């Protein structure tokens, strides 16, 4: 992949702009570009487009839908040959979510992730920082379930406004 594509990818092309607009099927307020899972879009001199996408979690069931949506959007825009490759390395992290993406998550009612990495694995039980309620802003919240409606989220409840909310887990 590497060598024959060098030089083609230097400019983020019109094809990138189209692929970048594909919304995440499970959290449609953010695009795959916002999430940082769109890795690369290259176009060769025949106009064939090669898109590289990485999953958030290994078992993310949205990957096939995302690939279909990318192909769909690009073919409707006139690209005849589009293929989508799933890449695993380097592994995606919630740190790859753009500032715009974090803001959109918060506005949608999903508490965005904090920085990933440190704080895990020190003792038998890992402690997490408090998560701010995306509705009223209170830090007085509690985790009700470490796992939520999708692999990337956990369930929280705000003690202040009493609303339940989703939190995008740091990964």
């Amino acid at each position, binding site marked *: 992949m590497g060598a024959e594509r060098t030089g083609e990818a230097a400019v983020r092309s019109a094809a990138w702009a189209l692929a970048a607009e594909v919304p995440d099927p499970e959290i449609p307020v953010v695009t795959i570009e916002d999430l940082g899972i769109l890795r690369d879009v290259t176009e060769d001199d025949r106009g064939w487009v090669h898109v590289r996408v990485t999953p958030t*979690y290994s078992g993310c069931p949205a990957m096939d839908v995302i690939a279909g949506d990318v192909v769909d959007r690009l073919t409707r825009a006139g690209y005849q040959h589009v293929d989508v490759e799933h890449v*695993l390395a380097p*592994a995606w992290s919630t740190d790859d979510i753009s500032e715009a993406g974090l803001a959109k998550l918060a506005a949608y009612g999903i508490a965005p992730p904090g920085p990933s990495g440190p704080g895990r694995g020190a003792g038998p039980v890992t402690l997490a920082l408090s998560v701010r309620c995306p509705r009223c802003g209170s830090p007085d919240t509690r985790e009700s*379930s*470490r796992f939520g409606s999708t692999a990337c989220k956990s*369930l929280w409840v705000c003690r202040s406004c009493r609303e339940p909310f989703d939190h995008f887990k740091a990964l």
Partner: protein
Amino acid sequence: MSDPLEGHVGYVLGLADDALISAQRTSWWISRAPELEEDVALANIGLDQLGQARSLLAHAGALEGQGRGEDELAYWRDERDYRCVHLVERDQADFGVAMARLLLFATYQAELYAALLGSADPGLAGVAGKAVKEVAYHVDHATHWVLRLGDGTDESHERMQAALDVEWPYLDELFEAVDPALLDAGIAADPTALRLPVLARLEAVLAEATLIVPEVTPRRGGGRRGLHTEELGYVLAEMQHLTRSHPGAQW
């Protein structure tokens, strides 16, 4: 010609089958867990394991070079061609057993995937890079339950200890030596080197949970050579019957 299921392909298949069969057993709990949040948690954990299994199976198929993809490997291999350890394949219809097993298996996977980050096989390193972060959540989840039940009521303590006693004899098989050629090539993580760090982490959790490390004779194992308990057959029958009854069906 050497057995195609040995060596590099066999190693990757072993890891894939552990994850796949564990995913099947774990997802059995969906709608049967003690609370709704636990249904969701175990569904997510099973899904992570399934995702790891899919990537590993696809990689094993590519390495093998016979045109077998992830579905072919999952649905069309018989028991004797499966390479999973006995720990993951047995029934786990007791919640304490399920949590004891998840603690053992996820802790092992955490150390395994951490070691595979530096594998000379970029396919394995790629899967490990994602999985290592996912299984940290699995370890966490199992730890919470083992602490809660172990250091809970007399009844929960007793049942958690009994569950550990059931699962502990299957721990040893995870650390069975692999083909030294794979270690020399930097492809595999040496299972024998994983034993101490895994035990250290488990013992720390058990101490905190007021549970004792079971003194039990290890089981003989044999899963990596295709020798399984009777119980694997039932998992495979359930998982494979639809595809085998309707080959090539799409939905």
